[in-house]
Structure formats: structure tokens, C-alpha cells
């Protein structure tokens, strides 16, 4: 049945995701019953996905400014100055709900959407990253989701020719019915050639370019703002289909047009498609916009105004041109075989007016549409973090060597090569450090000595136990991973993945995580410049682990100085940072002792900054061969990863007195790094002078990891354990 035959009333509004109070507000703004198209526009613009109605009051607490921030949140992506007259433009965005319903297309269109957010600002995309969370491997559904998501990310990124250089993957039962697919794109633009979305110039032509509009993805933003139930698969028609080939043409055509002076404003048609791009562009410019939908390139016949305004067909952009630039612009899009159509113009009415087949389909004042959008300060139940475990009292069920093998083979710590080997990480010819080679990916800027350091980070089990400390740790770890390469951390993008915000405990997780993140951002001069919020990540009423995924960006002036994690023979291994033996919420506790409890390791932001600044200084001074932060799995896992990466063994010293072997080797105390240095004594002396805790760990060489007590593991045995999981699981 066609929806156009339905009367518009509160019942229909509810089906569109608006509650009674919100619908009453629509009636007040319009002064009449809205048309179906108008109701559709209100419902998507006021959806959680587009309006951030539950999260906005909290997002304001995040620091967003620094001397190097050119554009913070509010534009399509964040922009930071990286020197040499260049900027890095980046953002991370979720495609969780579509990826559960249709993993391949959900993940692929997630990559496509975030690419458009970046190149719409004038940047050539130079790197993609991702942050993925899947259910338990034992869950029969997980394998299909992992396979589809990985194929989808690769299928899109490989084809558009943007290297996928980094990411992270976790498995946990809490994601069984609700995987997370967060995609990040980083681009480079000249500082004086950045394009924004605010429309201007009364009478200026509004141009549609890219793919034709079909019925795919109608009401996708509304879907992304609701919980799942057993019938979620019925939502498959709302998942969009990606076309990376058209995206590649669109990137090249838009960048070519951006080399001229034809563009006044430009924005991609992302969630809520033509509606959100037209409303946001006109709204930001304080102008009006009038569109004639008969001119919209259409893939299907008989589409209604409602369908065209709500379609989320992919690979489309909306552009306001300088008057008279139509022919120049059309020639470029013709060259790239892309649709180009003038579909409207900018007005001085402050209204969005939609016409179709001679009829007026919508006429909405823009200011109330955005200013009177719902804003909720939802009830909060603040989380009560568990107390710290008595770490001394935790019994170790197995010797250190066996525990190491078991940890290295566990799904959360094992080699991700099966995934990376499906992503083209080097196309573009600028990838200095690929996945697994360093704590952050290093991508050089073509024609410059500079490189970007890029990472994605979050430890959801910490966030579940203590959302505030977990939020703080996620930011600190991103900062640490960039620091470990020698790069200077500049800014982050955040992707806040949480459950149903109407539940006070979920809102409490969200607010506490923001507070922890804000503390770390402030202490580390690491502001948030873009982000995305994904709520209602629940299936059958069960929420995910709170997952504030952080995408971090740093810069290093000379790409040749960037350090990886691979060790070589004849080096000293030195531990930087304090080790107390913190086992609460550690992977050792979960995988070896079978417990998920206690408080997560605290982050001391003063020590974090001090230790990190020390490490970065040492790398710049040239004495560091390799550097790796200590994170999931603790110290011995970090050392084992360095040994495998460098195909070089090492002999380790006895742990200090007053700490259990499990606590020393597998504790997840924060703010720590392992450095492989040519001269430990000099490094230790420098650390003493700087007031940074440091300790000699051992010496590299051979092809065994020799643990104290004389027991050795061959690198072959370690590698076999590390690579076993994906090979045997996925085949």
C-alpha cells in the first residue's frame, strides 16, 4: 500500500518515530496538518541520528578548541592545521544498524558515507580506518557478520583506491545482536581551499550530482534511531546499496570542480538524503531553498516527493554554485559520466519549498525546524564503579608461559592479519607503517616530508565497569598510540556507541564517558573536532558495552623518524611507566582466570602526559629503535608482539619483588611503553632526570622469548598460537 494514501495524524507520526509531544510541536510550527512529505522531513530531521536530541547537552562538555583546530564539530568533518599550509580533515561515523541487517552493504556504505563527509570539504581522502565490535565467535551469526563486514569494508575501500591502514576489533557477547561498524576517513586539503556547507547567494543554482535517486534507504535515519527486535531483518529494504565505482568518479569530479571557483557551498547527501543536505545547507546560511523534484535524476519510475526527499541512495552530493557556473560544472560531471541536474535555487524566504509535478509538496520554515528540534536532558542514573580487586590475592591458575600462549591465541589479542590481508593498505604509495607495523598507522603526505599518525581506540570492558575511567582511557590510549610512533597527537574524532538513551543507566554511561573523555582531552591538549553518536544499540532490550570509539590523529614532521614495534637483535628493552600489577578488568583476568570483574586500571593523566612527552622526545632524539605501548594483555603480550613483528627473540629479566608474576607480566597498568634502545643506560639515566619511572626488561636476540626461570617459547610456537584463531575459524 502506498503511504501517500494514509492520512497524516499522530498515529502515522508515531510510526515515523515522533512521539505525541514532538508531533504537537510540528502542528504548532506548521499551523496546520503537515503533508506526508513534510511529516517525513520533520521525522528524519528530529530523529536521534540527525538531531542528537539526547546527546547534545552532554557533547557540549567536550573541549573542541586548540590553536591548530581550523574547524571543530558542526561541519561535515573536523579540520586541523598540520603545517606547510595543509590541513587534515577527518571524522569517524557509525553504520551499526545497517551492518547487522546486511553486513556487506552496511559496512560498505559506511565507508562510502564517511569518505563523502571528508571530500565534500575539499580534501583528497588518503586513509581509511575502522573500529569493529562483534559478538562471541561461538555465536553462529557472528561468523557471517564478520565475513560480510570485512568484505564490505575491503570491497568499497579497495575499489575507491583509498588505503585502509588501521583499525581495531573486539569480540564480546554484548555485541551478539548488535555489532558496531565505525568507519573513519582522513583527507588532506590546502588550508585556503576548504569547502563549507553554508548556502549563500539569493538565486544561486542548487545542483544535484552523482548517482540517481532510488527507493533505497528510505527512513534509514529513523531505523538508526530505534532498537532492534526479532523482526529486524524485515528492515532490510531500508539498507542502502553502495557503488564504490561511482564514488571514485564523484571524488575525482568534485575535486576537479573544487579546483575552480564555481562552488559556493557543498554537502554530501548522507543520512536523510536530500532532506538533510538541503535543510542543513540553507539553515546554516540563514537563507531559504526551493527544489523542483521533477529535475532530480531518478532510477525508478513513479517516485513520490516523500520517497525522493527521504531516499538514502548513495553517492550523491548537493552543491550551490556561483551564478553562471553551471556550464563549467556540467562539463566536469559529463567528463566523469555522472548525473548533473539543476534542481532548485537559493531564496530569501527562510523556508524549504518542495515542488513536484506542479504541486506544492512541502513548505516549512527552516529556523523552527532546527531551533525547535527536540532537546532532551534525559534522566540519568550515574554508574557506580566497582571497587578495586585485591590483586595480590588473585590466584594464577597456570604458569606465565602457558598464559601468554593462551592470551596470544585469544580472539581479542590474536593476529588480525586475516582481516588486513583483505584491505589494500598501500594504494596511493604513501603508507609508511601498515596495520600491525606500528601503534598508529603512518601515512606520508605526497610531496612533503610530513606524515600523519592515525589510530582508533576503545576498551569497552573498561567502559562497562567504569564509563568515566573507560572514556578517559580511550582518549589516553589514542594519544599513547600516536606518541609511540614519535608523532605529535593533535585531535580526535569520537564515535559514541551506546544503548537506549531513554534508560537512565544508559544515559549515565553516556554522560560519565563524556566526562572522562573531556578530562583526558583537556589534560593532553587533544580536542574533539568531529564525531558521531549512535544510540539505541540494543537488541531484545539488551544493550551493548558502552563503546566511545576514539579516532586519533597526529603529525610527524619527518616520516623517516616514525617508529614501529618490530625489534631487531642486540637491543635493550626498557619499560617506561609505573607497574602496580593491576589485574582488574584485564584480559588475563577474563581469559586465564575466567573472571570479568573489578575496577579497570586508573589513568593518571599527569603521568600519562609526562611519560608520553618523554617517549616522544627520546624518539626525536634518535635513540629509539622500536616502541610499543602496553595495553590489552599487559607487558608480556606487548613484548611478544614486538618479537613477532621483528622476528627476533629476547631474554627477559626477573620481575621486581613485591608484585605477583601475573600482575607484572599481564597487569594492564596505564601510561606505559616498551622501548627497544641501543643504549639502555643512557635512556634510564634520562628517565631518572625527567622523573619518569623506567626499568630494564631484557635484551633482544635469538629466536626465542626466554622468560625468567629459564623457560623459553620459540617464536614459531608463539606465531602459530597468534595466527591460529582466524585461520581455523574462517578457513
Amino acid at each position, binding site marked *: 500500500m502506498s503511504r501517500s494514501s494514509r492520512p497524516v495524524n499522530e498515529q502515522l507520526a508515531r510510526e515515523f518515530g515522533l512521539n505525541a509531544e514532538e508531533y504537537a510541536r510540528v502542528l504548532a510550527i506548521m499551523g496546520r496538518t503537515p503533508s506526508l512529505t513534510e511529516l517525513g522531513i520533520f521525522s528524519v530531521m528530529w530523529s536521534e541520528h540527525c538531531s542528537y536530541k539526547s546527546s547534545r547537552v552532554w557533547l557540549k562538555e567536550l573541549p573542541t578548541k586548540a590553536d591548530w583546530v581550523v574547524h571543530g564539530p558542526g561541519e561535515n568533518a573536523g579540520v586541523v592545521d598540520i603545517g606547510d599550509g595543509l590541513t587534515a580533515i577527518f571524522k569517524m561515523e557509525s553504520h551499526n544498524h545497517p551492518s547487522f541487517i546486511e553486513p556487506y552493504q552496511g559496512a560498505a556504505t559506511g565507508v562510502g558515507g564517511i569518505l563523502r563527509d571528508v571530500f565534500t570539504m575539499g580534501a583528497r581522502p588518503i586513509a581509511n580506518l575502522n573500529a569493529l565490535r562483534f559478538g562471541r565467535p561461538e555465536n553462529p551469526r557472528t561468523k557471517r557478520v564478520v565475513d560480510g563486514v570485512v*568484505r564490505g569494508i*575491503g*570491497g568499497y575501500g*579497495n*575499489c*575507491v*583506491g583509498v588505503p585502509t591502514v588501521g583499525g581495531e576489533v573486539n569480540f564480546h557477547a554484548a555485541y551478539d545482536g548488535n555489532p558496531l561498524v565505525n568507519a573513519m576517513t582522513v583527507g588532506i586539503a590546502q588550508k585556503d581551499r576548504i569547502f563549507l556547507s553554508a548556502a549563500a547567494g539569493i538565486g544561486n543554482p542548487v545542483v544535484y550530482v552523482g548517482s540517481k535517486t532510488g527507493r533505497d534507504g528510505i527512513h534509514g535515519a529513523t531505523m538508526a534511531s530505534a532498537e532492534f527486535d526479532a523482526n529486524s531483518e524485515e528492515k532490510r529494504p531500508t539498507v542502502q546499496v553502495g*557503488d*564504490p*565505482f*561511482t564514488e*571514485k*568518479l564523484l571524488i575525482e569530479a568534485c575535486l576537479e570542480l573544487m579546483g575552480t571557483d564555481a562552488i559556493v557551498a557543498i554537502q554530501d547527501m548522507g543520512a536523510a538524503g536530500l532532506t538533510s543536505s538541503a535543510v542543513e545547507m540553507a539553515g546554516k546560511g540563514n537563507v531559504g531553498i526551493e527544489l523542483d523534484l521533477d529535475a532530480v535524476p531518478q532510477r525508478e519510475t513513479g517516485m513520490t516527493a516523500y520517497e525522493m526527499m527521504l531516499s538514502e541512495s548513495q553517492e550523491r552530493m548537493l552543491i550551490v554554485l556561483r551564478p553562471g557556473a553551471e556550464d563549467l560544472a556540467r562539463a566536469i560531471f559529463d567528463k*566523469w*559520466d555522472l548525473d548533473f541536474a539543476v534542481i532548485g535555487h537559493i531564496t530569501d524566504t527562510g523556508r524549504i519549498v518542495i515542488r513536484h509535478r506542479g504541486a506544492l509538496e512541502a513548505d516549512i520554515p527552516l529556523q523552527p525546524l532546527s531551533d525547535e528540534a527536540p532537546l532532551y536532558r534525559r534522566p540519568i542514573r550515574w554508574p557506580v564503579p566497582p571497587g578495586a580487586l585485591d590483586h595480590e590475592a588473585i590466584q594464577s591458575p597456570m604458569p606465565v608461559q602457558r598464559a601468554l600462549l593462551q592470551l596470544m591465541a585469544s580472539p581479542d589479542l590474536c593476529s588480525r592479519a586475516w582481516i*588486513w*590481508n*583483505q*584491505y*589494500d*593498505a*598501500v*594504494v*596511493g*604509495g*604513501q*603508507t*609508511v607503517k*601498515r596495520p600491525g607495523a606500528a601503534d598508529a598507522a603512518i601515512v*606520508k603526505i*605526497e610531496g612533503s616530508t610530513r606524515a600523519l599518525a592515525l589510530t582508533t581506540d576503545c576498551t569497552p570492558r573498561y567502559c562497562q565497569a567504569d564509563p568515566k575511567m573507560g572514556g578517559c582511557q580511550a582518549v589516553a590510549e589514542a594519544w599513547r598510540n600516536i606518541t609511540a610512533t614519535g608523532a605529535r597527537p593533535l585531535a580526535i574524532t569520537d564515535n559514541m556507541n551506546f544503548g537506549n538513551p531513554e534508560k537512565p543507566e544508559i544515559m549515565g554511561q553516556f554522560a560519565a564517558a563524556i566526562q572522562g573523555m573531556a578530562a583526558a582531552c583537556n589534560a593532553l591538549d587533544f580536542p574533539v573536532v568531529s564525531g558521531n553518536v549512535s544510540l539505541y544499540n540494543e537488541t531484545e532490550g539488551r544493550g551493548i558495552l558502552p563503546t566511545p570509539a576514539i579516532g586519533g590523529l597526529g603529525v610527524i614532521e619527518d*616520516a*623517516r623518524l616514525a617508529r614501529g614495534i618490530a625489534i631487531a637483535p642486540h637491543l635493550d628493552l626498557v619499560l617506561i611507566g609505573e607497574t602496580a600489577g593491576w589485574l582488574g578488568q584485564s584480559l588475563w583476568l577474563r581469559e586465564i582466570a575466567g573472571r570479568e570483574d573489578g575496577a579497570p586500571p586508573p589513568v593518571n593523566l599527569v603521568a600519562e602526559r609526562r611519560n608520553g612527552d618523554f617517549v616522544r622526545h627520546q624518539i626525536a632524539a634518535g635513540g629509539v629503535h622500536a616502541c610499543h605501548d602496553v595495553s590489552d594483555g599487559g607487558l608480556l603480550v606487548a613484548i611478544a608482539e614486538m618479537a613477532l613483528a621483528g622476528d627476533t627473540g629476547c631474554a627477559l629479566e626477573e620481575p621486581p619483588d613485591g608484585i605477583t608474576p601475573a600482575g607484572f607480566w599481564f597487569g594492564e597498568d596505564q601510561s606505559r611503553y616498551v622501548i627497544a634502545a641501543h643504549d639502555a643506560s643512557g635512556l634510564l639515566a634520562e628517565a631518572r632526570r625527567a622523573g619518569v619511572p623506567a626499568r630494564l626488561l631484557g635484551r633482544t636476540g635469538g629466536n626465542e622469548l626466554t622468560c625468567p626461570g629459564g623457560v623459553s617459547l620459540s617464536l614459531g610456537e608463539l606465531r602459530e598460537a597468534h595466527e591460529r584463531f582466524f585461520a581455523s575459524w574462517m578457513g
Partner: protein
Amino acid sequence: MSLRAGIVIFPGTNRERDMAIALTRASGGQAPAMIWHKDATLPPLDLVVLPGGFSHGDYLRCGAMAAQSPVMRAVRDFAAAGGYVLGVCNGFQILTEAGLLPGALLRNAGLRFLAQDHHLRVGRTDTVFTGNYTEGQVIRVVLAHGDGNYVADEQTLDRLEGDGLVAFRYCDADGAIGAETNPNGSARGIAGIYSADRRILGLMPHPEDYVDPLMGGEDGAPMFQGLVEALAA
């Protein structure tokens, strides 16, 4: 010495920048010409390169649409007149679809996209492409393809081997060739082949991505240096 190289851009080509970097680096700063797929004629060139990517999205058989481009008539004429042509990855696929090289490239035997380092054993070295390698040399290159499984009928394979037209084979780090060193199921481990006159080379791996040690390797550099030395006027 300057090499007049031209890189053909098809819609969906995405490794033209990598190729341009490699050629520019080898020829002392001389940038190659970029040639549009709708061009029916070529400027005066010493070398035409068909780079990697997903021409026309690979939505039909890989390279099938690109092989019908106006520029490919000009490339055929160029080759017929004795011009040198290099096709890498999607470029190799286009050369087979255009009939300039025998055989075809099917979906990888493992049915997954392969993006990893792999070793190749160099065949003969009396060509403009391999003059700076030694015969039997093992080089490390980048693979990035979903459809690199080389097939041809037995007669053609026998002829390629008999006439010394197998340019590169997949091998392990020690140069050993066998089923376990074959990443994509290619017949007889073939990674690249020459035309009968050895003026056209098609190969699946990407030598252009390993011309700078900073990017992880430079085993591809001798190919581009060799081309400059052999062809530059």
C-alpha cells in the same frame, strides 16, 4: 635522459599516482603524461602504462569495458608499431581482454581479495622491463587483487613457457615454486607474461608500490630504472 611515459586513466583507475611516483622517481623528476580513456590518439611516447584499479567498477569481467575504450585502439596501434606497453593488475586484465596478451584472469582461487606482500621469481632479463634484475632473482612485491588467477589453455601455457614468455612466477622467499607459494591459483604459478615480441608486459603484482625503502621495499625500482635506461632518449 628523459623517458616519455604515458599513464592511461580509465574511470575507476586508482593506482595512477603510485605509478607516476615510480616513473618520476626513476627518471629523475620527469613526470609521465596522463592520458584520458576517451582520447583516440596518443602523444609521442616511449612507453604506455595501463595502471591498476577497478576500471568501470569491474562490474563486467575485469578490464572488459576498458578494453573497448577509444584509447585502446590507439594503444593497439602503438603496440603494433613496436611500442612498449606495461599493464599492471587491472592493466594486465585489460591487456588480456584487448587481446594484446593471451589468457584471462579469473577470481582468486580463495575467493577473497588478496592484499599482502608476496615473492616473485624473475624470468629472462633480456627485456626492457627486467634488464636491471638477474635471472632467477627473487623480489618482494605487493599483491592487491581479487581477480588474479591466470588461466590459459594448455597449448598457450606450453607456448608461453617454451618461448620464454613467462616474465614472473609466484614463489617463496627462497625462490621455491609450488602449490603452497601460489597465492591465487594461477596456472603454473604465473604472475606476469610477455607478448611474443616481449614489448608488452602484463603482471598482477605492483612493482610501483615498492620503489622507496620508506614505504617498505624497493624491489620494484629496478624495473622502472631499467625502463628509463632502455627507452629514454
